[in-house]
């Protein structure tokens, strides 16, 4: 007999009621297609660190969104990550797909705006590539 976790039933209902829009987001689709993963870059440059330097800060972002602001609870983010990766980012390596799924969740929840993100990425890119 399989026991059904009551926590799961409760979350199922909550996630269902949210009915988050899971359609593709153009700015993220572009990164998915054009972005170079850490695996690719580290192989090319002979770097041995298995994780990109931004992995820790990504984890910290996920944690503060859940633990400090409660804007995106950890379990909901992980469920959305599973679903979004399944639908859109299955072929993207980890942790790049975790990052895409986080951005996707934040946009679809209205916590950040897609246009703002595209604009801010241009600014960040300009800044990081200044020298």
């Amino acid at each position, binding site marked *: 007999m399989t026991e059904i*976790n009551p926590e799961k039933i409760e979350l199922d209902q909550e996630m269902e009621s949210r009915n988050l829009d899971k359609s593709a987001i153009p700015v993220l689709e572009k990164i998915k297609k054009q972005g170079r993963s850490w695996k690719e870059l580290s192989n090319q440059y002979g770097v041995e660190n298995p994780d990109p330097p931004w992995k820790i*800060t990504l984890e910290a972002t996920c944690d503060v969104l859940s633990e400090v602001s409660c804007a995106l609870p950890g379990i909901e983010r992980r469920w959305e990550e599973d679903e979004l990766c399944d639908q859109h980012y299955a072929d993207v390596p980890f942790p790049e797909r975790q990052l895409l799924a986080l951005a996707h969740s934040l946009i679809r929840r209205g916590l950040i705006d897609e246009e703002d993100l595209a604009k801010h990425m241009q600014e960040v890119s300009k800044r990081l590539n200044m020298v």
Partner: protein
Amino acid sequence: MADKHKPAPMVDEVSEFEILELAVRELAIEKGLFTAEDHQAWTEYMHTLGPLPAARLVAKAWLDPEYKKLCIEDGVKASLEVGIDWINQMPTKFGTPSDYCNLRVMADTPKLKHVVVCTLCSCYPRPILGQSPEWYRTPNYRRRLVRWPRQVLTEFGLQIPEDVEVRVVDSNQKTRYIVMPERPEGTEGWTEDQLTEIVTRDCLIGVAVPKPGKTANDPRPVRKALKPYSH
């Protein structure tokens, strides 16, 4: 002279993903979802995490039956002896991420083998074991381990005899688990430091067992799940 001091290789380009990570973080700060100080505090905390404290806990328990008893009775209290304070060390200062503060140490015996999963998402005892590996987060591992644990363990290279019970422990928001494997033969007279070295992350999850001379995790394949994700 210059050749002797060659800098370590580095990635000499900025990737779209690096830009995205920073842009998301800065926008979240700009929107007031959290502060830069909060983020810095969590980042610093993340940098302190790794599997060494859990490995030391097991090594100490192998050497000290009283400590082993404490580990089994109260994992949080036992963690203090390896430098992990589940309550006060966290940036929140009142507990750990997702409010969990219950560590259970599952001791293997000759007739019982434990293995850890999180069927709901990827709950993991990060304060004492660091970040979870990619395969641990996959729906494939999470779905299959609870149904066919022996088969999955065999894929990890671990053949469990039929007369040994395999017990899968399912993590949740409140409770996290580590496995205390049995001390292997050939380690008689070893020091705590020597023993700590062979208790790898995979041994602590339960998908491997410690062996003298083996101090690193094997590369693990990440398998996709064929069935679509649904709740």
